[in-house]
């Protein structure tokens, strides 16, 4: 069965390693925080100026001066630090953030990503997405494998305006975990529980690389 959003978040949480500094985008990526094992010590960065995002506040602790990049009220963990937007993107651009997890509308087989603009629709802006994808060494995309009308979002080339070139390393969708190959192509690493390789092949418009047996994801 295809994963739901929580399933995707749970699978991505397995990619998190102890000691990582992580930037989580809006949507499914934000959910990942809920499934990182307690044994791992990681720090979440919010690009509006905080390292060490904590839980949502209780009603009494809500502070309008403490929000995340999705403009949600948050709290700080012990050891947090606040800074300005230039310092925040200095961290991102300078490669100090170990892992970036973000959503996408399309990913191409050479790792290009489109996630900021749909021609003909109101343009809201790229926010920090272009900085994140151009800077991060380690980007995981969380998304549905296909669009609402069934078209593949894993393409030979992106059809939508690009957010960044050759930057996506790994993709976790409702159907599969895939690795973007240096030479081009989506290497299939894992299948969602009950999903067949054929189903994934059918849902993938870009070059799909299948080597040997493809294991099923293990998700609690």
């Amino acid at each position, binding site marked *: 069965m295809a994963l739901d959003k929580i399933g995707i978040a749970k699978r991505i949480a397995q990619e998190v390693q102890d000691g990582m500094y992580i930037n989580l985008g809006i949507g499914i990526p934000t959910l990942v925080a809920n499934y990182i094992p307690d044994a791992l010590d990681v720090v979440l960065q*919010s690009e509006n100026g905080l390292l060490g995002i904590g839980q949502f506040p209780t009603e009494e602790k809500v502070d309008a001066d403490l929000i995340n990049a999705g403009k949600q*009220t948050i709290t700080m963990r012990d050891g947090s630090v606040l800074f*300005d937007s*230039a310092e925040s*993107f200095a961290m991102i651009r300078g490669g100090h953030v170990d892992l970036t997890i973000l959503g996408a509308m399309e990913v191409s087989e050479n790792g290009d990503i489109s996630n900021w603009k749909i021609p003909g629709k109101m343009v809201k802006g790229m*926010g*920090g997405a*272009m900085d994140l994808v*151009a800077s991060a060494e380690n980007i995981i995309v969380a998304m549905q494998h296909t669009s609402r009308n069934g078209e593949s979002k894993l393409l030979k080339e992106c059809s939508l305006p690009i957010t960044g*070139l050759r930057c996506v390393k790994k993709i976790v969708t409702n159907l599969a975990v895939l690795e973007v190959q240096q030479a081009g192509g989506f290497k299939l690493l894992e299948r969602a529980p009950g999903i067949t390789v054929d189903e994934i092949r059918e849902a993938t418009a870009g070059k799909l690389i299948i080597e040997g047996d493809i294991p099923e994801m293990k998700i609690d």
Partner: protein
Amino acid sequence: MINKVIKNASEAVKDIPDNAVLMLGGFGLCGIPENSIQALLETKVKGLTCISNNAGVDDFGIGLLLKTHQVKKMISSYVGENAEFERQLLSGELDVDLIPQGTLAERVRAGGAGIPAFYTPAGFGTEVAEGKETREFDGKMYLLETGLIADFALVKAWKGDTAGNLIFKGTARNFNPLMAAAGKITIAEVEELVPAGDLNPNEIHTPGIYVQRIFEGKNYEKRIEQRTVRS
């Protein structure tokens, strides 16, 4: 210490002329110069170019200045959550320049720091790169981006002293310190104004040298866009 104190927001913004280029601090509605925006509504100054990460919401922040048609151009990274904004943009009344958030932050920082241009990887290979110089350093491609300055920077701090030194609170810091340094005239509104000497010199975020006018603001609403709580 040089005294930068001015009576109130009206005094602070009264000489901002039509067609001025402004920077306004804040991320979403967090850390925005509420009092100065209100005062601009009263002066009815027109044709403003506003450099600000966001454009407020329909009935708060820069959204208020959009409603009164005082803004001719926005330079921002994200401008959602604003129906009037969308209407003006589609009708051609409003011009918008969208800039990646980190590039915006660095361009403002560069402007304040006298750096006329720098290279950044953000936007290479995208629409943002159109018309811009590109260059390879150490195997990676970058865009040349220029520093930004403004005629007036409107910032909001938590505490400030009479010498113009500022301390921000929480994530309300965001673009405020950068913009303070990039305004030819910087107007700081603070929640609490104290005598010079009351702030610890080691805890100040914005040195007073960047601030030309400071006043204690009032009636802060601090509206929250996404009130999220745990039970």
